[in-house]
């Protein structure tokens, strides 16, 4: 027995909705869903209702609920909610008997789609969400049709037509429906480990740097673009060192040294990919926080109250040169020169010795950098694992490392020599995307450098890595170290076409993230300004929504009220209709009750001149229609009739 179409579509839609979560969902749940679906399918095919008893179903339900609780410790939140929804939906499959149950299943599937949309908004996934939603609408048709067979083509056509007609309204509402400025209530979500900068740095523990091509953020400059060597993107600032790992300052706040900005001002917009941390990146040195909810900490980090779980975009202004005439407080001085006791003894001794010989701070810094330059230090992405006195090991043993090693060692030496210093992490560089008109900064552009306090000038950036590999600052990591690229990227770089495709895709992706996913109240107000509203307000958005609604409904009704005559697949019938229309335009419409013969007779009576032209064709039509003719001659005569008809209608000789 065939599976009823309503059931089949319901199963398909549910399966599709579960598949949207397949990679995040623990296997238990989608296996349960698959098992229930197969059971249902098999049961429907046999036409027998041999579904599990209520007790077994309750047992399975409790089991799955316990599974969710064990796995997530809560049922509140996106991931546990999804798991719960999938398991309850699977169970519902085992008791769908009536249409009502099937509608409930479609609701569950749409809910799962919503959860997926809340979870991830990548451009490649969006069509899947829309697809599952459209399939759910088709399923509604088949569930409603019951035992009646509906041809697939008409069901699909009807759904697509309906959904297409809905698109203009969706776009208008998307643009103009007033959005709230912030979150009304928060969705508990678990932090997933994303690649990217963390709030600690352990250079000695890394033997291979990640080569992730994933974008960290994209930058669009308004006006001047800083030279490549100045493109330092400031992220977490690390103060605490235990001899092996650098961490952010916790619990202590110092006075922020006031900055004097100099040099050109760069205005730009950053589209930041989610990284689950609280920090925003900015070109060194931003003039302030971009908007409410983000503040600048005493060490010039931009920190937001909420973790960055979705793409955020913000506009900033930065100057690449700063100075501060303030004095460093004694407390801050102590913190910025503290080192763990009894760790890295050789380095500490070396720094003190060096400082004794070079008393001025500038001379000391230069001496340390000279040490890196002169003693065979090299840059590598695959350093050796260092022992617990990591700076000693690096400075006197391995002498090969990446930016983290150099920053860590440099700051340690500075602090040992009595100069306040700290590690700054972030990104350096950025790749120009000519199609999107922005710079893309990838995870592989991650960088670490140092900041030292110089009295009278304030915190100043020193990049020890630049001393070892000066090209790194101007040419990018990939050109300096051939092995530093993933295979695909390396391959793509060799082929201009492929590179071009990659850039295009990234530009489309960026557009999607910036314009669609990042569309918010601020974008709406910008749109209003573009439309000529000088002082954008919520109320204007409301009026626009109302206007769009009215226009759309009127257009819809007009569009649908235009009745089209039924499509004729029969070429002979088309000929006949055209012939009748031809006469109708000349004042002799064929009455609905008139057959071709009666019409011909009336034509002859009323309009002999017109009849003389039309009658031969009409007669031919009657013959072709009502007398048996061999198919090949019939086709030939039909062609001739159509030709004659064209000649009649358009006067073509």
């Amino acid at each position, binding site marked *: 027995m065939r599976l009823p179409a309503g059931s089949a579509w319901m199963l398909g839609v549910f399966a599709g909705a579960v598949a949207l979560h397949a990679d995040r969902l623990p296997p238990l749940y989608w296996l349960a869903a698959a098992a229930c679906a197969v059971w249902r399918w098999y049961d429907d095919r046999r036409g027998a209702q041999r579904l599990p008893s209520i007790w077994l179903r309750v047992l399975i339900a409790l089991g799955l609920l316990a599974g969710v609780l064990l796995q997530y410790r809560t049922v509140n939140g996106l991931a546990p909610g999804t798991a719960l929804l999938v398991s309850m939906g699977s169970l519902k499959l085992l008791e769908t008997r009536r249409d009502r149950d099937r509608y409930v299943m479609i609701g569950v599937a749409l809910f799962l789609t919503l959860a997926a949309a809340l979870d991830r908004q990548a451009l490649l996934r969006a069509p899947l969400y829309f697809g599952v939603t459209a399939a759910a609408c088709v399923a509604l048709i088949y*569930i409603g049709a019951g035992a009646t067979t509906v041809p697939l083509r008409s069901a699909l056509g009807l759904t697509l037509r309906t959904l297409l007609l809905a*698109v203009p309204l969706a776009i208008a509402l998307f643009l103009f429906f007033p959005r709230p400025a912030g979150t*009304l209530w928060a969705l508990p979500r678990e932090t997933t480990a994303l690649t990217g900068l963390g709030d600690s740095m352990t250079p000695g523990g890394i033997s291979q740097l990640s080569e992730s091509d994933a974008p960290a953020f994209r930058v669009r400059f308004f006006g001047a673009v800083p030279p490549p060597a100045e493109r330092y993107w400031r992220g977490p600032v690390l103060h605490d060192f235990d001899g092996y790992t650098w961490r952010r300052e916790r619990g202590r706040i110092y006075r922020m040294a006031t900055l004097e900005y100099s040099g050109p001002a760069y205005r730009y917009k950053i589209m930041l990919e989610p990284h689950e941390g609280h920090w925003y990146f900015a070109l060194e040195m931003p003039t302030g926080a971009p908007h409410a909810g983000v503040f600048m900490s005493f060490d010039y980090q931009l920190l937001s109250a909420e973790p960055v779980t979705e793409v955020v975009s913000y506009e900033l202004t930065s100057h690449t040169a700063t100075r501060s005439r303030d004095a460093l407080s004694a407390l801050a001085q102590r913190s910025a020169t503290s080192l763990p006791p009894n760790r890295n003894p050789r380095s500490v001794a070396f720094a003190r010795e060096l400082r004794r010989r070079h008393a001025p701070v500038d001379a000391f810094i230069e001496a340390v950098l000279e040490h890196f330059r002169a003693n065979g230090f090299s840059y590598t992405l695959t350093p050796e694992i260092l022992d617990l006195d990591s700076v000693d090991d690096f400075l006197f043993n391995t002498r090969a490392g990446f930016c983290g090693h150099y920053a860590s060692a440099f700051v340690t030496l500075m602090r040992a020599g009595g100069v306040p210093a700290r590690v700054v992490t972030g990104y350096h560089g950025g790749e120009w995307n000519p199609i999107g008109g922005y710079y893309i900064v990838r995870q592989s552009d991650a960088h670490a450098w140092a900041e030292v306090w110089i009295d009278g000038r304030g915190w100043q950036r020193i990049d020890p890595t630049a001393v070892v590999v000066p090209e790194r600052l101007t040419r990018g990591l990939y050109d300096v170290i051939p092995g530093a690229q993933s295979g695909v990227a390396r391959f793509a770089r060799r082929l201009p076409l492929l590179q071009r495709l990659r850039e295009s895709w990234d530009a489309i992706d960026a557009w999607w993230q910036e314009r669609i996913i990042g569309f918010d109240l601020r974008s709406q107000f910008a749109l209003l300004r573009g439309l000529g509203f000088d002082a954008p307000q919520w109320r204007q958005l409301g009026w626009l929504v109302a206007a769009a609604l009215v226009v759309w409904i009127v257009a819809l009704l007009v569009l649908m009220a235009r009745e089209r005559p039924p499509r004729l697949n029969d070429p002979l019938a088309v000929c006949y209709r055209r012939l009748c229309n031809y006469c109708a335009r000349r004042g002799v419409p064929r009455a609905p009750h008139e057959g071709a013969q009666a019409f011909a007779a009336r034509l002859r009576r009323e309009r002999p001149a017109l009849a003389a032209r039309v009658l031969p064709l009409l007669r031919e039509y009657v013959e072709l229609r009502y007398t048996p003719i061999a198919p090949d001659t019939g086709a030939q005569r039909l062609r001739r009739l159509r030709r004659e008809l064209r000649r009649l209608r358009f006067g073509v000789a």
Partner: protein
Amino acid sequence: MHALSRRLRTRLATRFARWIRARQGEDRLPLTLRRNRLYILPTRAGLGFTALVVMMLLAGLNYGNSLALLLGFWLIGFLFVALVITHRNLQGLQLASATLSPAFAGDAARLSLQLTAPQRRRYALQLSLPSATARLDAVDCGGSARLECALPTVRRGRYPLERIGLQSTFPFGLFRAWTWLHLPFELIVYPVPRGVRALPASAEEADQGSAPLGAGHDEWSGLRPFRDGDSPRRVVWTAYARELPLFVKEYSGASAESLLLDFDRLGGLDTERRLEQLARWVIDAERRGARYALRLPGVRLDADSGPAHRRRALHELAVFGCAESGR
């Protein structure tokens, strides 16, 4: 509490039905379903779907999630269009004619509506009466289709036809569009033809005591043109085959067998039994080809035969003692 709410609901429904009846008036055929008599409301599934879309929008607005908002707005538009499509599935549909055939008590009476769809193809139409439902898959564009519904009957009598709901949830089952039809029809339910008494002797026999039952041979007195209600058995088919108009043989009254079916002669039975017996006799007499007269208190049908006469006789039996219905 539950009973109270149900009573309240019934009362409200009755009020509403009466209001609609007064608003629309009685329907004359043929009629076109125009906007002013079409009603549309979301179904249960439609309400659920709407709630889901609202939830999507709330989630999208709350989390500033553009994708959820886009999905939600898209489905809002979808709901709107679905509403219009469902409405259009009924709008402009024409009810060309309707027939309601009588039935014997216990059998099903047949209500048949001839629907035509001048503008476009219509799908999944449903007819609903309090006592029965029927379904029609499609009415082709420019074509017509017959929607038939079997109405169960219980007792003989004349019943005003309840209002008819013609509805559709096509295509997505999210909205139900419907209209109420108030057709000026009466459902006539004949008494069950049942009884053991023998057919009374023919009128002549009773009067003169001559020719035995059923022996009357057909001696025709002439031809006359066919009239509606004439028995096909009397049509001169041979003449029709020669492309002449339909003619019917006329018999001289004296030679045809003529029976008298009289209510008053059925002593010892109550009224309903007598009516049932009379119905039995009408059918038997007609089957035999005899002419028969019917006498009921206050009713007098002269002797005749043929389907029209049979119908008239059975009708009288059905409505005997019933007041004219309130229409």
